[in-house]
């Protein structure tokens, strides 16, 4: 089968712009693991260049190679030639699906459509907080709501402690991730979310998941949302917290929050208020290494994904010697917790979860003192 892909001028330019310097090797989490050039940004761009020039047929293997990217954007910010490989890869995934190379996310799309979440879970935990109207609305997202429930419970509790007047909706998957992996966002689900959100009269939508944040903020299907969208770290940055920890704390920048959304300072502003003993990992902010979960990679390659998380976690521990690793992304949290080895003493939390725990410790401390 020799199927040719169509490349428009913009795509051609992006592909030919790669000078094959190979600098992306230093920052690609998948290459770091495999040492195989095909898994690296420049390897994938070379494949597409050959497809574009008619030297290589668009094969099943090309389609598979395109799936091996977490869209972490670390290569983008470090590319001397100004190429954004993850955009090229995502477009190629759509193209490959378009010419008949469906991937395993086709089934996920069907599951999302049927169940309203990526896991096909029929039942959703009742998180309470169902006011008819409130100024703030908290949106949890699939990974938090179905896979990191304990963490979400603490986050919800924190907002209560801070006396935030908020509500939640009968949310369904934002479904933005489908566009990353070759398919289309589910317009019906987007409409349902928009309707439910608007019914509450909320002025601000707060998301715990950085990916949901990006979808609500930037995706055309949510353009009629008509309210302010904030990631929970943006929302909380100006709050005063009555708690502190003496423990050595470090922070992992989620790719979706950092490189994709440019939110680096807000989580740090919060951490500095509560943890005077805060240390940065060596690779941090724009240069933070990916946890390995993003852009469908964990779904498609679970074993490699957890190995990447293991590498990142070990590196953070080695760099910082921290007792507490904070992040604010349900996917990063989930991947790190799966990756953590028993002998590793570090505790891993979402920042909001950790805050709630500190409040909890304070309360129990007060009780004991009494």
């Amino acid at each position: 089968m020799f199927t040719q892909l169509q490349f428009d001028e913009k795509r051609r330019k992006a592909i030919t712009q790669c000078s094959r310097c190979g600098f992306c090797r230093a920052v690609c989490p998948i290459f770091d693991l495999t040492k195989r050039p095909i898994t690296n940004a420049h390897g994938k761009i070379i494949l597409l260049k050959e497809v574009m020039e008619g030297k290589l047929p668009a094969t099943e293997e090309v389609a598979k190679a395109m799936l091996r990217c977490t869209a972490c954007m670390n290569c983008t910010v470090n590319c001397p030639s100004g190429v954004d490989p993850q955009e090229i890869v995502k477009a190629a995934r759509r193209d490959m699906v378009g010419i008949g190379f469906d991937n395993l996310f086709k089934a996920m799309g069907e599951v999302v459509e049927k169940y309203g979440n990526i896991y096909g879970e029929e039942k959703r935990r009742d998180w309470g907080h169902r006011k008819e109207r409130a100024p703030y609305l908290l949106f949890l997202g699939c990974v938090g709501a179905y896979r990191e429930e304990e963490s979400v419970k603490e986050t919800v509790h924190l907002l209560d402690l801070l006396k935030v007047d908020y509500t939640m909706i009968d949310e369904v998957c934002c479904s933005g991730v489908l566009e990353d992996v070759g398919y289309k966002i589910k317009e019906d689900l987007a409409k349902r979310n928009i309707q439910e959100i608007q019914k509450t009269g909320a002025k601000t939508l707060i998301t715990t998941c950085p990916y949901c944040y990006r979808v609500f903020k930037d995706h055309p299907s949510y353009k009629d949302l008509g309210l302010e969208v904030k990631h929970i770290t943006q929302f909380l940055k100006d709050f005063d917290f009555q708690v502190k920890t003496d423990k050595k704390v470090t922070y992992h920048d989620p790719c979706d929050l950092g490189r994709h959304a440019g939110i680096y300072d807000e989580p740090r502003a919060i951490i500095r208020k509560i943890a005077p003993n805060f240390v940065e990992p060596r690779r941090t902010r724009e240069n933070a290494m990916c946890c390995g979960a993003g852009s469908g990679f964990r779904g498609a390659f679970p074993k490699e994904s957890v190995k990447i998380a293991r590498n990142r976690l070990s590196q953070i521990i080695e760099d910082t010697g921290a007792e507490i690793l904070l992040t604010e992304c349900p996917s990063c949290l989930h991947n790190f917790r799966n990756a953590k080895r028993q002998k590793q003493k570090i505790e891993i939390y979402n920042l909001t979860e950790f805050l709630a725990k500190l409040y909890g410790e304070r309360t129990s401390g007060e009780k004991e003192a009494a």
Partner: protein
Amino acid sequence: MIKKLIEIVGQDNFTDQLEELVPYSYDASMNVHRPDAAVWPETAEQVLAIVKFANEYKIPVIPRGAGTSLSGGVVPIRGGVIIDLSKMNRILEVSIENRYARVEAGVVCDDLNRELAKHGFVFPPDPASSTVSTIGGNVATNAGGIKGAKYGTTRDYVLGLQVVLPTGELMRTGSYTMKCVSGYDLAKLFVGAEGTLGVITEVTLKINPLPRHAMTAVATYARLEDAGKAIFQTMTSGVIPSVMEILDQVTLKSIRDNTDIDLPDAEAMILTEADGFTWEEVEAQMEVVLSILKQNHPIEVKTARDEKDRLNLWKARKSAYATLARVSNSFVLDDVTVPISRIPELLVGIQGISQKYGIVVATFGHAGDGNLHPQILYDEYDPDQVKRTKKVEEEIFKLTISLKGTLSGEHGIGLSKASYMTLEHDPVEMDLMRRVKKTLDPNNIMNPGKRALD
């Protein structure tokens, strides 16, 4: 062949799948050719078994590090098996008391330096690709970098090697000592050999104490001639700056037009640095350099000593490659090198050639050691531009040789410059090079087709 290679390295460390071989058909030059297979050995013994087998069946083998070569050095022009050494990336020994580090060939240059920095030491040659380039690759191309004038190139730091010879033997050569005149200096024969004589599997490198302080200065000149004089006078003043970089007018204009870096309209910019153990030492050197920079009619001179200001002065130089890479879809980046005093002639000559063929050439590079990087910008999909680019490159090489220079200061010959070897090397020397190659590699399996050796 497949069965045997899998037997040696294991199923997971072998591939002959077309798609996976595609990236191995390239480096950062414009050369392309498919290999037949690729392997990721994890030990020198595996490399030995691969080479033994390849020699028996006369299959080409191409050792490869990060594949950042700009000359086609790792492009498998005759097919064969790529030996990717990336998985052999252990730092085996750091001996501060004996001033050496022993590493596997696949260790990344910056990873080594991060480890050495913990002890206050450094492996000084710093190619632009040091975030990814491997020590094995650095040795095979005798990689240089920005600090060549004061600290030399990789060759000056190689004490010993472990090499798999093309005929299927494992050899240790060189020493662990600061001095050694015991027998022929075979280790150096493999430095810069571009993988044509054997597969380097382990390297013992001399290391230096890390300089504690550095000061940076930038000077811009309306006339190239004045910049040339400033360089020449500095390099003969008794001070050897750790950095002495030059950016030409085309490069400066490109940076000015495509970034927000504020630069004057100048024919040349010099970026220089002095480093040392104490501030007194640094300042004494910088005083001499600054007075020379100022005597030669600069537009302006700026200095910096703290990290933030230094990075600011480095901005233009650091953005040169990136800016130029975005201007066109393709480029050739050469590394011609001339005796230091001939730099202005080379720069002027390159501009003449550029105008003659209507192809943009931006030049920057390491003025302190005479090594310049003309970056020839063109469109690879325009056959006429490709043709003119070839002519430009050829004339730059001819000009360089006429100035008593060399084709390659730090990238190597590979495929791109192979046809120009006889410009620089007379028949006697070419013949000896070919005899050396034939003696070590009688079946011509090691990275064949490179440097006009066969």
